[in-house]
């Protein structure tokens, strides 16, 4: 019994392997890109629009609303990264309904790669918002003694992101495989449903956590001066 799709080798030459994880990842990328391209070929802004455009608009505006709820004031800067994370992980989980498919996020390589993307993106967005000095100073908040703990927490939450997603996806596929050998038919279907639910929840968790980390890194600490209403009273309205 194999732990993930890594051991499913399609083609091998020396040490270069084309395994199931890579194949399914590229398949997912192809599906997402081609579907989006097909839908966005003929966009319309009036009330008559295709249902696929409607679907994509619902998805995009829901993600945008979630990003603003987390505290990121300009969602258009981050929706590319966060939306892609959510859609990739969600589609990777949803594809379980197709027989013969194994989610590529059930392999530690994929989830580690996604977590590394978040690990790199958080300082990038933080430096873009606050400048290099401002971002580095944020590691010493609230006191300088917290500097090693902040660094350790950065590393550990990246690891936690990777292992959480890997564990959830891998356990789903493994329990289905085990149940198939014991009681085929009913229980594997129920466990597949549960695996779909946890896959969607984990996709949401992954992207919301990435958004929360980015929001923590881009929180600007300068307060804009509030104009005094005593020294400069508002002008009286002209009648």
């Amino acid at each position, binding site marked *: 019994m194999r732990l993930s799709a890594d051991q499913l080798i399609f083609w091998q030459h020396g040490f270069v392997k084309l395994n199931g994880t890579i194949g399914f990842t590229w398949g997912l990328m192809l599906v997402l890109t081609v579907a989006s391209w097909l839908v966005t070929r003929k966009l319309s802004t009036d009330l008559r629009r295709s249902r696929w455009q409607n679907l994509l608009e619902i998805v995009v505006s829901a993600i945008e609303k979630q990003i603003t709820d987390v505290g990121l004031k300009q969602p258009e800067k981050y929706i590319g990264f966060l939306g892609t994370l959510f859609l990739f992980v969600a589609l990777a989980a949803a594809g379980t309904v197709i027989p013969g498919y194994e989610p590529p996020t059930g392999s530690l390589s994929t989830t580690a790669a996604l977590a590394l993307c978040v690990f790199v993106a958080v300082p990038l967005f933080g430096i873009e918002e606050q400048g290099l000095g401002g971002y580095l100073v944020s590691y010493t908040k609230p006191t300088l003694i917290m500097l090693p703990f902040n660094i350790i927490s950065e590393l550990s939450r990246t690891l936690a992101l990777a292992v959480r997603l890997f564990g959830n996806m891998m356990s789903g596929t493994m329990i289905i495989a085990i149940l198939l050998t014991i009681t085929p038919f009913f229980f594997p279907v129920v466990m597949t449903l549960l695996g779909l639910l946890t896959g969607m929840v984990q996709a949401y*968790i992954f992207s919301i956590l990435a958004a*929360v980390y980015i929001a923590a890194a881009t929180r600007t600490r300068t307060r804009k001066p509030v104009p005094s209403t005593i020294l400069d009273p508002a002008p009286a309205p002209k009648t």
Partner: protein
Amino acid sequence: MDNMTIIAVVSIITAGLTIALGSIGPALGEGRAVSTALTSLAQQPDASATITRTLFVGLAMIESIAIYCFVVSMILIFANPFWNHAIAGVAKAAGK
């Protein structure tokens, strides 16, 4: 008992104990989290979106502890380096 038997016995027992003991804490924690969330939902239904989202994020963080234990027990059963090392040693000795 030779080395291989000891490794096998300890791995199996540890794998079972890891997941059994490791799920107690997260289960209790998640129960308390959901119960508090239900109480606050009943008190302030307007904030249900925020409460639900925060609840799910919190549940995922609590769940990750159980996931760590599960991963360790899976490694002990399926990808055990000591077992592989012992198997390789036996194969080399048999091949000589």
